[in-house]
Protein backbone atom coordinates (compact mmCIF):
# COMPACT_ATOMS: atom_id res chain seq x y z
CA UNK A 1 0.00 0.00 0.00
CA UNK A 2 2.91 2.32 0.80
CA UNK A 3 4.08 2.30 -2.84
CA UNK A 4 0.61 3.42 -3.98
CA UNK A 5 0.16 6.21 -1.44
CA UNK A 6 1.36 8.92 -3.85
CA UNK A 7 -0.94 7.98 -6.78
CA UNK A 8 -3.82 7.55 -4.32
CA UNK A 9 -3.17 10.90 -2.64
CA UNK A 10 -2.75 12.65 -6.03
CA UNK A 11 -6.01 11.14 -7.26
CA UNK A 12 -8.00 12.12 -4.17
CA UNK A 13 -6.45 15.61 -4.11
CA UNK A 14 -7.42 16.43 -7.70
CA UNK A 15 -10.84 14.76 -7.71
CA UNK A 16 -12.07 15.74 -4.24
CA UNK A 17 -9.90 18.27 -2.39
CA UNK A 18 -9.35 20.71 -5.26
CA UNK A 19 -13.08 20.97 -6.15
CA UNK A 20 -13.89 21.60 -2.45
CA UNK A 21 -11.18 24.29 -2.25
CA UNK A 22 -12.59 25.82 -5.45
CA UNK A 23 -15.95 26.16 -3.71
CA UNK A 24 -17.84 23.25 -5.29
CA UNK A 25 -21.22 22.85 -3.64
CA UNK A 26 -21.24 19.71 -1.52
CA UNK A 27 -24.65 18.52 -2.69
CA UNK A 28 -25.97 14.99 -3.22
CA UNK A 29 -24.24 14.69 -6.62
CA UNK A 30 -20.88 15.69 -5.18
CA UNK A 31 -21.30 13.35 -2.21
CA UNK A 32 -22.10 10.49 -4.60
CA UNK A 33 -19.04 11.36 -6.71
CA UNK A 34 -16.86 11.57 -3.58
CA UNK A 35 -18.12 8.23 -2.24
CA UNK A 36 -17.21 6.47 -5.52
CA UNK A 37 -13.95 8.41 -5.92
CA UNK A 38 -12.82 7.36 -2.43
CA UNK A 39 -14.16 3.79 -2.26
CA UNK A 40 -13.12 2.46 -5.67
CA UNK A 41 -9.47 3.67 -5.59
CA UNK A 42 -9.11 2.33 -2.03
CA UNK A 43 -10.39 -1.08 -3.15
CA UNK A 44 -8.12 -1.08 -6.23
CA UNK A 45 -5.07 0.05 -4.22
CA UNK A 46 -5.69 -2.65 -1.59
CA UNK A 47 -6.07 -5.36 -4.24
CA UNK A 48 -2.93 -4.21 -6.07
CA UNK A 49 -0.98 -4.12 -2.80
CA UNK A 50 -2.02 -7.68 -2.05
CA UNK A 51 -0.90 -8.77 -5.52
CA UNK A 52 2.46 -6.98 -5.08
CA UNK A 53 2.91 -8.53 -1.64
CA UNK A 54 2.18 -12.00 -3.00
CA UNK A 55 4.58 -11.37 -5.89
CA UNK A 56 7.35 -10.37 -3.46
CA UNK A 57 6.59 -13.41 -1.34
CA UNK A 58 6.93 -15.67 -4.37
CA UNK A 59 10.12 -14.02 -5.63
CA UNK A 60 11.92 -13.46 -2.31
CA UNK A 61 10.82 -16.45 -0.29
CA UNK A 62 10.54 -18.87 -3.19
CA UNK A 63 7.68 -20.68 -1.47
CA UNK A 64 5.76 -21.16 -4.69
CA UNK A 65 7.07 -22.20 -8.05
CA UNK A 66 7.14 -19.26 -10.43
CA UNK A 67 5.22 -21.37 -12.93
CA UNK A 68 2.26 -21.31 -10.51
CA UNK A 69 2.25 -17.53 -10.17
CA UNK A 70 -0.38 -15.85 -12.35
CA UNK A 71 1.87 -12.85 -13.26
Amino acid at each position, binding site marked *: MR*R*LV*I*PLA*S*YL*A*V*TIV*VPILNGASIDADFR*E*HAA*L*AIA*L*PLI*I*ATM*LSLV*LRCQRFVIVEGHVSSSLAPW
Partner: protein
Amino acid sequence: MTRPRLYSALTLGAMLAITYALKRHYSTADAEALRWILAPTAWLVETLVRAPFVFEQHVGYINQELRFAIVPSCAGVNFMIIAICAAAVGFVTHMPTLRAKLTLLFASVGLAYLATLGVNAARIVIALLLQAHPVSIAGLSSAQIHHAEGIVVYFSSLCALYLLADRILVRPRPKAPT
Protein backbone atom coordinates in the same frame (compact mmCIF):
# COMPACT_ATOMS: atom_id res chain seq x y z
CA MET B 1 18.02 23.66 3.35
CA THR B 2 20.45 21.40 1.49
CA ARG B 3 20.97 21.89 -2.22
CA PRO B 4 19.17 18.68 -3.37
CA ARG B 5 16.15 19.64 -1.25
CA LEU B 6 16.16 23.14 -2.68
CA TYR B 7 16.26 21.70 -6.21
CA SER B 8 13.41 19.30 -5.37
CA ALA B 9 11.37 22.20 -3.96
CA LEU B 10 12.05 24.25 -7.11
CA THR B 11 10.94 21.34 -9.31
CA LEU B 12 7.78 20.81 -7.28
CA GLY B 13 7.09 24.56 -7.51
CA ALA B 14 7.40 24.30 -11.31
CA MET B 15 5.06 21.28 -11.23
CA LEU B 16 2.48 23.26 -9.25
CA ALA B 17 2.71 26.14 -11.75
CA ILE B 18 2.25 23.79 -14.73
CA THR B 19 -0.67 21.88 -13.20
CA TYR B 20 -2.34 25.10 -11.99
CA ALA B 21 -2.10 26.58 -15.50
CA LEU B 22 -3.48 23.35 -16.98
CA LYS B 23 -6.36 23.25 -14.49
CA ARG B 24 -7.17 26.92 -15.08
CA HIS B 25 -7.15 26.44 -18.86
CA TYR B 26 -9.36 23.34 -18.52
CA SER B 27 -11.90 25.06 -16.26
CA THR B 28 -12.63 27.76 -18.83
CA ALA B 29 -11.89 26.05 -22.15
CA ASP B 30 -14.60 24.99 -24.59
CA ALA B 31 -14.40 22.10 -27.06
CA GLU B 32 -12.54 24.29 -29.58
CA ALA B 33 -9.84 25.21 -27.05
CA LEU B 34 -9.48 21.58 -25.97
CA ARG B 35 -8.94 20.22 -29.48
CA TRP B 36 -5.26 19.59 -28.58
CA ILE B 37 -6.49 16.67 -26.43
CA LEU B 38 -9.99 15.93 -27.79
CA ALA B 39 -8.92 15.53 -31.44
CA PRO B 40 -6.26 12.80 -30.88
CA THR B 41 -8.58 11.06 -28.38
CA ALA B 42 -11.43 11.06 -30.92
CA TRP B 43 -9.03 9.79 -33.60
CA LEU B 44 -7.91 6.92 -31.34
CA VAL B 45 -11.52 6.01 -30.51
CA GLU B 46 -12.44 6.19 -34.22
CA THR B 47 -9.56 3.83 -34.99
CA LEU B 48 -10.53 1.39 -32.25
CA VAL B 49 -14.29 1.26 -32.88
CA ARG B 50 -14.15 2.00 -36.64
CA ALA B 51 -16.83 4.67 -36.44
CA PRO B 52 -16.37 8.34 -37.36
CA PHE B 53 -16.65 11.15 -34.79
CA VAL B 54 -17.44 14.59 -36.20
CA PHE B 55 -16.38 17.81 -34.51
CA GLU B 56 -19.26 20.09 -33.56
CA GLN B 57 -18.56 23.62 -32.36
CA HIS B 58 -19.13 24.16 -28.59
CA VAL B 59 -19.96 20.45 -28.08
CA GLY B 60 -17.06 18.20 -29.01
CA TYR B 61 -16.72 15.09 -31.16
CA ILE B 62 -20.03 13.35 -31.87
CA ASN B 63 -21.14 10.12 -33.42
CA GLN B 64 -24.90 10.33 -34.02
CA GLU B 65 -25.26 6.64 -34.82
CA LEU B 66 -23.62 5.53 -31.56
CA ARG B 67 -25.37 8.39 -29.70
CA PHE B 68 -22.05 9.24 -28.03
CA ALA B 69 -20.16 12.52 -27.62
CA ILE B 70 -16.57 13.14 -26.54
CA VAL B 71 -17.08 16.43 -24.72
CA PRO B 72 -14.74 18.70 -22.71
CA SER B 73 -15.77 17.14 -19.38
CA CYS B 74 -14.39 13.78 -20.54
CA ALA B 75 -11.19 15.14 -22.07
CA GLY B 76 -9.06 13.50 -19.38
CA VAL B 77 -7.22 16.68 -18.35
CA ASN B 78 -7.69 15.87 -14.64
CA PHE B 79 -6.05 12.48 -15.23
CA MET B 80 -3.15 14.23 -16.95
CA ILE B 81 -2.76 16.59 -13.97
CA ILE B 82 -2.87 13.66 -11.51
CA ALA B 83 -0.27 11.74 -13.52
CA ILE B 84 2.09 14.75 -13.62
CA CYS B 85 1.70 15.30 -9.85
CA ALA B 86 2.22 11.62 -8.99
CA ALA B 87 5.33 11.34 -11.18
CA ALA B 88 6.91 14.56 -9.92
CA VAL B 89 6.12 14.03 -6.22
CA GLY B 90 6.98 10.33 -6.33
CA PHE B 91 10.30 10.46 -8.12
CA VAL B 92 11.80 13.95 -7.80
CA THR B 93 13.88 13.01 -4.74
CA HIS B 94 15.40 10.07 -6.64
CA MET B 95 16.86 12.38 -9.28
CA PRO B 96 20.41 13.49 -8.35
CA THR B 97 20.72 16.87 -10.08
CA LEU B 98 18.52 19.87 -10.88
CA ARG B 99 18.83 19.01 -14.56
CA ALA B 100 17.62 15.44 -13.91
CA LYS B 101 14.74 16.71 -11.76
CA LEU B 102 13.59 19.16 -14.45
CA THR B 103 13.99 16.49 -17.12
CA LEU B 104 11.76 14.24 -15.02
CA LEU B 105 9.16 16.99 -14.75
CA PHE B 106 9.03 17.82 -18.46
CA ALA B 107 9.15 14.14 -19.44
CA SER B 108 6.24 13.60 -17.02
CA VAL B 109 4.21 16.27 -18.81
CA GLY B 110 4.83 14.71 -22.24
CA LEU B 111 4.29 11.13 -21.09
CA ALA B 112 1.22 12.10 -19.05
CA TYR B 113 -0.27 13.62 -22.23
CA LEU B 114 0.38 10.44 -24.24
CA ALA B 115 -0.88 8.23 -21.39
CA THR B 116 -4.02 10.34 -21.11
CA LEU B 117 -4.80 9.84 -24.80
CA GLY B 118 -4.43 6.06 -24.51
CA VAL B 119 -6.22 5.64 -21.19
CA ASN B 120 -9.06 8.00 -22.11
CA ALA B 121 -9.58 6.29 -25.47
CA ALA B 122 -9.71 2.92 -23.67
CA ARG B 123 -12.19 4.34 -21.14
CA ILE B 124 -14.43 5.66 -23.95
CA VAL B 125 -14.31 2.35 -25.84
CA ILE B 126 -15.32 0.50 -22.65
CA ALA B 127 -18.11 3.06 -22.11
CA LEU B 128 -19.33 2.41 -25.67
CA LEU B 129 -19.30 -1.34 -24.99
CA LEU B 130 -21.24 -0.82 -21.75
CA GLN B 131 -23.71 1.37 -23.64
CA ALA B 132 -24.21 -1.32 -26.28
CA HIS B 133 -24.39 -4.14 -23.70
CA PRO B 134 -25.87 -2.62 -20.53
CA VAL B 135 -24.99 -4.34 -17.28
CA SER B 136 -26.66 -4.15 -13.91
CA ILE B 137 -24.37 -3.78 -10.90
CA ALA B 138 -25.74 -3.47 -7.35
CA GLY B 139 -28.68 -1.32 -8.44
CA LEU B 140 -26.44 1.41 -9.93
CA SER B 141 -27.90 3.58 -12.71
CA SER B 142 -26.19 3.65 -16.13
CA ALA B 143 -24.77 7.10 -15.29
CA GLN B 144 -23.33 5.78 -12.03
CA ILE B 145 -21.84 2.76 -13.83
CA HIS B 146 -20.28 5.12 -16.41
CA HIS B 147 -18.83 7.21 -13.56
CA ALA B 148 -17.53 4.14 -11.73
CA GLU B 149 -16.02 2.76 -14.96
CA GLY B 150 -14.12 6.03 -15.41
CA ILE B 151 -12.73 5.87 -11.88
CA VAL B 152 -11.68 2.22 -12.22
CA VAL B 153 -10.00 2.73 -15.62
CA TYR B 154 -8.26 5.97 -14.65
CA PHE B 155 -7.06 4.87 -11.21
CA SER B 156 -5.95 1.38 -12.32
CA SER B 157 -4.00 2.94 -15.20
CA LEU B 158 -2.47 5.53 -12.88
CA CYS B 159 -1.27 2.80 -10.50
CA ALA B 160 0.07 0.66 -13.36
CA LEU B 161 1.98 3.62 -14.84
CA TYR B 162 3.30 4.64 -11.42
CA LEU B 163 4.53 1.13 -10.62
CA LEU B 164 6.13 0.89 -14.08
CA ALA B 165 7.94 4.21 -13.54
CA ASP B 166 8.94 3.03 -10.05
CA ARG B 167 10.42 -0.15 -11.54
CA ILE B 168 12.35 1.85 -14.17
CA LEU B 169 13.54 4.79 -12.05
CA VAL B 170 13.79 3.50 -8.49
CA ARG B 171 13.88 -0.28 -8.26
CA PRO B 172 15.42 -1.72 -11.42
CA ARG B 173 15.51 -5.54 -11.38
CA PRO B 174 18.98 -6.89 -10.54
CA LYS B 175 20.71 -8.49 -13.50
CA ALA B 176 20.63 -12.27 -13.48
CA PRO B 177 24.04 -13.79 -12.70
CA THR B 178 25.77 -15.17 -15.75
